[in-house]
């Protein structure tokens, strides 16, 4: 017998899409449950990821941008840099274009009091007005002291509340000029200082109140030159706060800086501030756990419901196989249905997530001092949950689809299975 040419036709998407639509519409309740489970997963994970990203971003913004910077540079042996501005310039030059700003600060331990009652506080000498985005505080009321204002002080909101002072009030400022920086915020019965310590005592006027979760809420800020004058070195700075464009370059840049400026000791924020590092790690862990929960919450119902869906359509699968649909096409048919479910669920979940984002933007999950956590919506934040939900749905649906493709039409059509 002479062989006839074998028939060749390509798999066509049209009939498969048509059958997928008919199949899903024929199982509306199952389809609705599937979409609901995918939507719930996406609707949960999108705001969750956005909130955690917002938490990390707010933490970096407050603790580093409005805190001690990305790299803290101190003199290796001396008590302070004789000329803070010159030291800051040397640091900037040594690090090059990656430096956004190098800010000299003079930090001394002290106390602020009114009516004879004192509160411990770190006293910061700062070059007002500075760059607003990099100040180690947020001005909440009043005004910044003018450069050279020897009598003006900014008080942290918490410190002012404890002392019961407001903008325009006079306060007693005591500064330990010779002692090492100490703890702050403890109520003490009298002014600091003791035998052998030089204590500067000044009556200051509160020019403004400031907040800031990195410590500003319980600190005092005054003009650096005025504060330095009390130490006898008019341009002194105890540290240079280095702000980088990329926070995460700090650990690499700090050793390079030490190599170029042997007189300085440079510490990146990761090494200097385990609080931030651990908080960021905790956020990542919570996000990963949340992803795992969403994967489980989607994959189990999708797998189970599609499995039931396939079982209910075994006869139809057998008919399609008998008509000439290949295993690959039957797999594709059910995977298409999974894709439709995934896209419908993602759309509904994205709408739900958007609503949740609006809610959390209006009612932040965390708000204290200037640390206000609002959801961050970026392409990466949205893409992560969407891709995870899409991949999970497709993978979970591919198992029943594979089973569908393995259906033995002979047994099914003879009703053996």
């Amino acid at each position, binding site marked *: *017998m002479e062989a006839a040419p074998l028939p060749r036709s390509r798999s066509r998407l049209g009939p498969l899409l048509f059958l997928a639509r008919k199949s899903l519409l024929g199982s509306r309740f199952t389809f609705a449950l599937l979409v609901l489970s995918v939507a719930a997963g996406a609707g949960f994970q999108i705001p969750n990821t956005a909130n955690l990203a917002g938490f990390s971003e707010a933490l970096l913004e407050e603790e580093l941008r409005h805190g001690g910077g990305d790299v803290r540079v101190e003199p290796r042996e001396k008590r302070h840099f004789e000329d803070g501005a010159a030291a800051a310039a040397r640091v900037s030059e040594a690090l090059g274009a990656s430096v956004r700003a190098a800010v000299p600060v003079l930090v001394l331990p002290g106390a602020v009091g009114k009516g004879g009652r004192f509160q411990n506080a770190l006293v910061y000498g700062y070059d007002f007005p500075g760059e607003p985005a990099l100040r180690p505080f947020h001005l909440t009321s009043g005004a910044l002291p003018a450069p050279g204002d020897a009598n003006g002080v900014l008080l942290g909101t918490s410190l002012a509340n404890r002392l019961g002072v407001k903008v325009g009030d006079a306060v007693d400022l005591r500064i330990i000029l010779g002692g090492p920086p100490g703890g702050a915020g403890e109520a003490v019965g009298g002014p600091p200082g003791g035998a052998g310590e030089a204590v500067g005592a000044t009556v200051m006027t509160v020019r403004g109140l400031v907040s800031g979760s990195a410590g500003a809420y319980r600190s005092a800020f005054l003009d650096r030159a005025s504060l330095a004058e009390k130490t006898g070195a008019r341009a002194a700075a105890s540290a240079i706060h280095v702000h980088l464009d990329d926070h995460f370059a700090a650990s690499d840049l700090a050793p390079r800086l030490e190599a170029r400026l042997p007189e300085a000791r440079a510490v990146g924020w990761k090494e200097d501030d385990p609080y931030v590092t651990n908080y960021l790690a905790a956020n990542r862990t919570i996000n990963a756990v949340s992803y795992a929960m969403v994967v489980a919450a989607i994959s189990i119902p999708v797998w189970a419901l599609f499995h039931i869906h396939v079982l209910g359509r075994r006869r139809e699968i057998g008919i399609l196989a008998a008509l000439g649909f290949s295993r690959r096409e039957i797999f594709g048919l059910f995977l298409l249905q999974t894709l439709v479910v995934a896209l419908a669920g993602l759309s509904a979940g994205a709408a739900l997530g958007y609503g949740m984002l609006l809610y959390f933007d209006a009612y932040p999950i965390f708000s204290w001092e200037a640390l206000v956590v609002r959801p961050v919506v970026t392409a990466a934040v949205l893409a992560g949950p969407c891709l995870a939900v899409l991949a999970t749905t497709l993978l979970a649906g591919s198992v029943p689809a594979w089973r569908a493709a393995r259906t033995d039409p*002979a047994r099914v059509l*003879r009703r053996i299975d």
Partner: protein
Amino acid sequence: MPKVLRCESLVRRLGAHDVVRGASLDLDEAEAVALVGPSGCGKTTLLQMIGLLDRPSAGRVVLAGHDAWSLDDAVRAEVRLAWIGFVFQQNNLVEALSARENVALPAWRLGSSRREAERAADALLERFGLAARRDAPASELSVGEAQRVAIARALVNRPRLVLADEPTGSLDSASADVVMEALAAASALGAALLVVTHDLRIAARAGRTVEMRDGRL
């Protein structure tokens, strides 16, 4: 006359039991063969092996010169789609589809546009007296109507071989007559026809009758 089908020593073993034992059968183009025999003798199993639904334990099914079971799954599916029309005892329509959609689906899948496939389906449905029922869902068709739709579906791609497994088994005599006419029409179009039947009238209309007993022809 060219051979459409050659079965060579087909065996189908289920566990320790041979359901089909060395069945050999040839069919020429436009030839109609009735396969008769008692229930459980292996007729449907033989038909499913020939229809490329059930892999033989031994032997060969040669379709238009090709050892069909040696082809890979995708090509075998193509052969089923293009060369074989299957009519089952129970109509086995896709319930979610209308009569017209059921008939058009294989043609659409084979390469016709959807519109062309529906035109071909309409022509066959009209020929089998179902023009008025073409949009009815498969689940709402009577048994006789559904069986005619199934035959139309089997013929829509102009197959070389039509396999019918007791196509009138569940029909009244009037409906059975219509189905028999439809199968005769398939044969007239040049398809080889292999009909499993208990119906002596169908067997009498076939050009040749083959009896199967205990898995042997």
